[in-house]
Every structure is written in C-alpha cells, then in structure tokens.
C-alpha cells in the first residue's frame, strides 16, 4: 500500500523535476545560436538515445524476469528491418505481430 503523503510528495516533485529537465536547454539557450560543435553532436541525439534505451529492454525483458527470450529478439529485429524498409506503422505491426505469432506457434 502506498501512503498518500509519499505519493503526493513523489508525484509533485517528479512533475516539477521532469519539467525542469525538459525545459533546461530550451529555457536557457532559447533564441541563442548554439556553437557548431554542439549542433554537430545534437544531430545524433535520436539515434543515440533510442537504441541505448531499447537494447537492454529487448535483451533482458522484465516480463521474463530478465532472461533473454529469443522470440522477443526476433520480433525486435523484424520491427527494425520493416522500419528501415517500409514504415513506422509497418514496424509496429511487424514487431508485435511477430511476437504474437511466435508465442502462439511455440505455445
């Protein structure tokens, strides 16, 4: 059971903290021109953050208690290949579809 005090303290601080993280650079550097070296690195934020977020989730899923599940690895690869070749919707459908199909086939 989560106490009311703990919940509200956490939620309000998390809300404020998360906002400050999101606002950080937009708030401080808005309207200014960033130096070239910064712009060069910032181009790669997306391709740097997302794979780093995904890889551990695919290799050690919480749903299996952290044990590598070949079905999930295959489904993730399917989503990636379709995402590169076809589209975003294709990637989502291929990923979840492969997962369900393999889980069904393998019982």
């Amino acid at each position, binding site marked *: 059971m989560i106490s009311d005090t703990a919940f509200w303290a956490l939620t309000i*601080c998390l809300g404020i903290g998360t*906002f400050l993280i999101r606002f950080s650079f937009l708030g401080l*550097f*808005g309207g200014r021109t960033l130096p070239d070296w910064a712009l060069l*690195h*910032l181009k790669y934020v997306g391709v740097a953050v997302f794979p780093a977020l995904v890889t551990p989730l695919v290799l050690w899923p919480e749903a299996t208690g952290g044990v590598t599940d070949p079905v999930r690895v295959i489904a993730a690869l399917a989503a990636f290949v379709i*995402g590169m070749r076809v589209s*975003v919707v294709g990637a*989502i459908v291929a990923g979840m579809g492969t997962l369900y199909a393999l889980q069904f086939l393998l019982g």
Partner: protein
Amino acid sequence: MTPRAAFWRGYIDCAPFTLIVIPYSILFGVVARDAGLDILQTMSMSVLVIAGASQFTALALLQDQAPVFIALLAALAVNLRMAMYSAALVPHIGHARLGTRALMAYLMVDQAFAVAVKHYEDNPLMSQTNKVAYYFGCMMLICPFWYGCTLIGALLGQAIPPALSLDFAVPICFIALTAPLIRSLPHVIAAAVAALASVVFSGLPWSLGLIVAALLAMMAGAQAELFLKRRKPKDVT
C-alpha cells in the same frame, strides 16, 4: 505552407504512434489502480509528469516501500534523456517566446520529439513559425491520448492479460522511432555504438548506463561525420 497546415501535418505524422500510446497508457492506468492509487492520483501523475517510463519506475519503487527520495531520483534519472531532446530542439524552436517554450517543454515526449526533429531535418527551409506549429501538432495528438487512455485504464482497473505482452510495445515503439532516423553512415555508427554501450554499461545504477551510452554514441556520430568530411576532398584529387 501556413502554420495551420504545418500543425495538421504534425498531427498526421504522429498518428502511427497512437498505436503504442493507447495500450501503454491504458496499462499505466491499470497498474496504478492495482498499486492502490485512486483515480485522482492516477490522473494527477499522468498529467503532471507525462513520461510513462518514469511513472512506472516511481510506482514500482513506492510499492516496494523504497524511500520517496530514492524513488524520485530513480524516476528523474529515467527522464534525464529529455535534457538531450531539449538541447536538440533549441536550433529549431528556441526562438519562441518564453511562455511558449515552457509549454513546449511540458509537452515534450519521445515520439513527438523524434517525429518533429526528423521533419525539421527533411525540410531545412521550413519557417520558424511553422516549426512551432508542427511541434504542437505532434504533441496535441499524443498528449490527449496519454491522459484519456490512462483514465480508461484506471476506470477499467482490470489486469490486462499478460499474454498480450504489452510490455514489449515500448521497445517496439522506440525501434519504430529509430529506423527512420538512420539516414547516413554516421547515424549507423552512432546507433551501433549506442546499442553496444548500453549493454556494456547496463550495470551502472540510476539508469546512468543510458546517458553514458547516448553521450558516447553522439560523439561517435559526430566524429564519424567529421572524418567522412575530411576524407571527401582527398577522394577527389
């Protein structure tokens, strides 16, 4: 293109991600109710924080009776990546007024960030007003779904069958976000370094492995780009 058209363009470009946001936010509503939160508490969390992964983290730690301070730090660490989004958005929408920037910061979510930045890079001639309008188009699609479906999940309050493996919708979503961003050799290198480094540094506490891996990957991408640029003139001669 008028700002109105740019807004709707963003709205439509973000539409595929409702496929993920809907089940994920329903799941949050259900899990929060299971953890003993009432509907007001569940909704307050989704509205104040709008960051799914950190909400799940905070909730799980509170349930394990972790001290509030620890739960807070762990959840904030999960959101630290958004400082990088904030920086990456400065060249595109940093010109907006302070109040607008604050609103844009509040609405900043992964899906919309990825979609917006890709669109800006594909359309370098886009006007600043249209960039802001496009950004709001993206966010206006995702955020109402996030609130609304949290509420649906909280009202349903029933466990979603584990057989649906909804947990896997999260990595699938991020894979779908990544694929269109990989458009040149430096992008490939950055993504590969990110994946590899996230495994190597997965043992770091506070989700710091993600931050370290992302910073290394950004450096790898930037260095690869510089390296390829330096080589080009030589190839000609």
